[in-house]
């Protein structure tokens, strides 16, 4: 396809504009697009579609609408020291703990870029086992509290033994 402006070079920039619901499109070579000012768009600069720019675009869009900026600039991961602002610039987290440190801001982001916000796939054998155990411990502890509140001491003693056994098993 030839550039619609100079009719000489191959069209490599495809511009679609939607103005008041009316869609127009045209095809230009890189040089004409630059001259026309169409290449200002962040995705077209550089050699390929840059995912980071898209991501930080999404993140910045989000912070400009709604949340007060002061609140987000103070967010910092205590493990690696990365701030939320740095994350929005880089599009990358600094360490695994960042997911917890920035969890308040993560949910809306994940909703945008993923289908769900919970993992349903494969679980690692080793750490997966620990996670299953932790879940069970939490459940037993809640049950124990309830049993104490209900003054069901027989049940509470049973639960206490189960929790101990599990905790000891985890230490091994």
């Amino acid at each position, binding site marked *: 396809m030839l550039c619609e402006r100079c009719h000489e070079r191959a069209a*490599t920039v495809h511009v679609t504009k939607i103005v008041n619901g009316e869609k127009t499109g045209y095809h230009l070579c890189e040089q004409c697009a630059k001259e026309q000012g169409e290449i200002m768009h962040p995705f077209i600069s550089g050699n390929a579609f840059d995912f980071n720019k898209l991501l930080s675009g999404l993140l910045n869009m989000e912070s400009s609408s709604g949340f007060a900026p002061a609140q987000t600039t103070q967010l910092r991961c205590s493990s690696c020291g990365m701030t939320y602002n740095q994350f929005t610039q880089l599009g990358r987290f600094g360490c695994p703990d960042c997911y917890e440190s920035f969890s308040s801001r993560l949910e809306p982001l994940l909703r945008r870029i993923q289908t769900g916000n919970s993992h349903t*796939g494969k679980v690692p054998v080793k750490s997966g086992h620990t996670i299953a155990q932790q879940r069970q411990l939490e459940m037993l502890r809640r049950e124990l509290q309830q049993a104490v509140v209900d003054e069901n001491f027989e049940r509470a003693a049973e639960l206490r033994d189960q929790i101990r056994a599990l905790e000891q098993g985890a230490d091994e």
Partner: protein
Amino acid sequence: MSLSDFLQRAMSRWMRDGGPDDDIVLTSRIRVARNVQGYPFPILQTDSHASDVIEMVGKAIEAAPVKELGQYELIRCRDLSALDRQVLVEKHLISPDLAEQEKHGAVVLRDDELVSIMVNEEDHIRIQCILPGMRLDDAWKLATSIDDALENKLVYAFHEKYGYLTACPTNVGTGIRASVMMHLPGLVLSGSINRLLSAVSQVGLAVRGIYGEGSESFGNLFQVSNQITLGETEEEIIGNLQSVVYQLIEHERNARQQLLQRNRTQLEDRVSRSFGILAYARRMDSRETLERLSDVRLGIDLGIIQGVSAGILKELMVTTQPAFLQKYFSRELSASERDVRRAALIRERLRLDDTEVHG
């Protein structure tokens, strides 16, 4: 060294072997991203963090469960020349980003090069399995077995809710990227490619040209891959991609048959011209090479050209790349020298086959 000896040694299995539906699907690839618990991601890594991760991976591949899955070798990027790193990029075994990680990067290669494990790229560990033809299921089985075997010696960063934690939130959850490299000349020639590709991108998949920039693709080669990594299981992600790929295969086959029925002479002319150019030209740039190879491969698939091995597209699309050419001719080549040598390599390669063009 003769060309056939060189190719024998330099080619990965995926470049040489065929597989199911390999008239359209060149390769099936699964990439799995993993990180080691307790270490910052590579973006914030110090030298000692990077060495620790490399050492841990080195130990993990020495352990019995991984050893059972093949012969592995760990190579640090700094021990490879820039040219050798570039060759690995051209063979699709490492990413351009890892090739630039001279200080912290490393790669584990299985001897048949169907498996590569990138260390300290964007994530600590990226397991990649690349199989010829449409074999996503097998690629996943291989990747997950290597993942399990590595996990024996490593503790992965895993979150109860978010799954496997990755440097970029676009990979979190399963950490899986499944992709299929497709040759779609029929859909491009018939003009229906854009319509189909935009439909594909609406079901959570990404399509991009493999060579060329942005929306432009050279050689009618496209990569279709999943975008979503969280909220679906690995099997769902792969199944979704598979069903779309099978539909694309069907559309491509129909388009090829229609072209043959309606424009046979035009098609034969196009294919034969491209073959003639590849067989006789004295200068070939990489873009024209890919375009001519695509035509020739289409000619082979439709029975117009006989005696040329069907693997020629896969083989030459890699071996005519800049680093490969410099490796074969064992010297540095300027861009215009490469065009001359590229044409020479292609002519020589075609002479290895007993070709015949029908008309």
